[in-house]
């Protein structure tokens, strides 16, 4: 039956090929090892990750991402400090592909590594593993001078959803780096503590519009978002329509009927997405006080606006 089914790889043969003097042959062997899916391929790939040829090491680092388990994680963490940046990038990508929570034991020590790149990669890989042991090292990493590291640290903490991490996230919400601030704001949404929505609400006045946009959006998801309703209403005249749009959406999600007339002004905004969102929100709020505004918008040039206006009118009752 040879040739009909995909063969099971012959690991001895491939191990032999990995010892070939020809780099091309070694590379081909790695590809076959990756396809084999056999757990016993991992030690062979781990040794290939130390090959003198950087192209081979790169191929091995990519291949290791197809195997889960501590041995693969170990080889990949070592490859994070390879001399060739292409190898280290591939190793970081592959490490983030691993899903077995037990890998955390191998990865955790690398959060304290002196290199920012290694730290960042380790934290990124830890995020999906959701191991409570990662909280402490991640909190420490929040003080790292490198923003890329802090972003991943916020990620690890946010995924764990522990109330005890809220103070750290709150201070990250006023980080010097805008991306860190956005991440922290989003991460705070899970928390029920009023202090969390206060921290998010403060970000509504951030100097950077993407941060304000994130804050406006996060309040809609936040369990204590209603307490920030006045700050959200104030954002309805942000200079960026992107921020206004998220504020409208969140006010509707939080059922802030008091915002209806302010939202209704959005029905005449030049950006069609704004008009559409305003109409949808008024429908969700069943805002009969906006009846006249909605009727005036019923013949909008934009079909999506018309549709949402019609729907909103049907909700007023």
């Amino acid at each position: 039956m040879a040739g009909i089914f995909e063969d099971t790889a012959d690991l001895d043969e491939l191990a032999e090929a990995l010892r070939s003097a020809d780099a091309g042959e070694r590379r081909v062997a790695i590809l076959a090892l990756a396809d084999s899916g056999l757990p016993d391929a991992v030690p062979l790939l781990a040794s290939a990750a130390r090959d003198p040829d950087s192209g081979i090491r790169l191929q091995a680092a990519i291949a290791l991402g197809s195997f889960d388990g501590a041995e693969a994680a170990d080889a990949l963490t070592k490859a994070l400090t390879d001399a060739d940046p292409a190898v280290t990038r591939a190793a970081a990508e592959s490490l983030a592909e691993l899903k077995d929570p037990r890998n955390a034991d191998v990865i955790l020590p690398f959060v304290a590594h002196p290199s920012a790149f290694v730290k960042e990669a380790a934290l990124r890989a830890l995020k999906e593993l959701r191991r409570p042991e990662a909280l402490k090292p991640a909190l420490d990493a929040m003080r790292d001078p490198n923003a890329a590291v802090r972003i991943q640290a916020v990620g690890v903490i946010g995924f764990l959803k522990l109330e005890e991490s809220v103070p750290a996230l709150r201070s990250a919400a006023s980080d010097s780096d805008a991306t860190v601030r956005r991440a922290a704001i989003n991460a705070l949404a899970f928390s029920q503590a009023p202090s969390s929505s206060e921290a998010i609400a403060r970000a509504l006045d951030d100097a950077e519009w993407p941060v304000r946009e994130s804050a406006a959006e996060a309040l809609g998801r936040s369990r204590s978002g209603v307490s920030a309703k006045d700050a959200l209403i104030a954002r309805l005249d942000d200079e960026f329509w992107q921020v206004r749009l998220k504020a409208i959406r969140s006010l509707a999600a939080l059922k802030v009927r008091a915002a209806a007339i302010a939202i209704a002004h959005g029905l005449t905004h030049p950006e069609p997405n704004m008009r559409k969102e305003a109409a949808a929100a008024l429908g969700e709020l069943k805002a009969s006080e906006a009846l006249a505004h909605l009727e005036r918008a019923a013949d909008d040039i934009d079909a999506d606006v018309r549709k949402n206006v019609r729907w909103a009118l049907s909700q007023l009752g």
Partner: protein
Amino acid sequence: MSLDKIVDGLTEVDCDVLVIGGGTAGPMAALKAKMKNPNAKVILLEKANVKRSGAISMGMDGLNNAVIPGHATPEQYTREITIANDGIVNQKAVLKYAEQCYSIIQELDKYGIRFQKNENGDFDVKKVHHLGTYVLPMPNGDTVKKALYRQLRRVQLLISNRYIATRLLQGKDGRVAGAIAVNTRTAEFLIVKAKAVILCMGAAGRLGLPASGYLFGTYENAANSGDGYAMAYHAGAKLANLECFQINPLIKDYNGPACAYVAGPFGAYTVNNEDARFIECDYWSGQMMLEFYNELQSGKGPVYLKLNHLHENTISEIESILHKVERPSRGQFHANRGTDYRGNKIEMHVSEIGFCSGHSASGVFVDEFARTTVPGLYAAGDMASVPHSYMLGAFTNGSIAGQHASDFAKDVDFAAYDPEDIARERERVLAPTRREDGIPPNQIEYKTRRFVNDYLQPPKVPQKYRLAQSRFAEVREDMETGMIARNAHELLRALEASSILDCADMAACSSLFRTESRWGLYHLRTDYPGRDDENWFCHTLLGKTDGRMICEKRAVDPYVVPIDDDEKDIYYRQRIEARA
């Protein structure tokens, strides 16, 4: 050695469950059949190579129809699909999908397929319209196939690549008995006896001819030539609602998706030449495609995808997703033409016609266990009749099929078949290789597909349809008596040409049968412009009876999720034209 030389050979193998097509539904079906019964012998047979085959070859931008607790309910989803499909659905199958798909998402997540999550690690489902929230982006969607393949290798599944299945073996007792396949590089035969067979051969994507005229420039993966539809037909299975064609909006000439589903949540949208949105319909449906088509035909065309009102940051983010995953050549296409999302809008068009339940509702009839009307024969994914199922439907229904088929195979023996059937099929397959001179497969295919465009493209005119039928008969005659294949690769194309012609005939037959219009552009008849619920609130089932193609009606099963008139009204109100 000359290229792809034809070798004479035939091997027989047997198994409990045979899965044909290793794209999306197939790998999942095979995996689940094996997990359900680890002792079962499961074979996954694929025309290409499972590593990179099928619609998701390069990955996917996201799930279009994820029913995730907290964002949508299975009942709500079932109602919306029922309405989008003008009422003609087997609700039990839709509901079953909706109930099971979340557990499949969680499983795929464990396999290492990445779905977008927010900073709290919860799935970041995007709201596209106010009816339901179903879109879940996949930022690392390019790893889908790799992750699936890994799972298959892990359970050491038997994978047979580069075999094109050509016909099913029919058991004397009416059950399925296995399948016949041909190697695409040597033309050697493989006979697989099986207790249960699952068809996962994707859409019939090479039916209409793309506007570019390039045979392989299709919307669907061009390897999906409708072989599954043809095989099911010849094996006596019924096919449902084939007249409900697949037509998709796409980037003109590139003929790939523009991905309004990706760009939509970021604020991009489709506009006419006045820069205004024009689509009144809220669902991806034939009605939506009709509005699209009408706008293209009107003075307000062309139609564009518009992103240039978005902020630079947002556009960069969209680009990084769109040009990496799914159809990465999209970026190259735009670059060639100097199109930049920041300044230019992207010209859109509608696709050629095809069959596909993934996007529409044309497929082999199946029930909520993915069973076809032939005992032991299952179907899942784009070629099975569960409507609008997309990628997650292929995974979920593939899983349902795999588990049920595994159980079925446990309790039965192989069905006996007539060995003469194999001899006859060998003759049919090899006939083009026995000729000294003749018509190459690409010309047979081109002519068939040109007629599909000339005569079958909606709006449907019955006189044109009848003309098409006689043209197809002429092409068939030429194909059966004069097609030539000089090597195994040409034979692959010859076999595909025959499936394409079968599909063209089925498209014509079922469209003529349903004497009403339904599903917007998909089945728009000029002689019966209105919808006729009194006579046509039913499925069309097409099948082979005494060697002839026959259509019949099948009642829609009673709904398990009732739809009240209010809800229908909300939907129909969306269809009212602007007052202005």
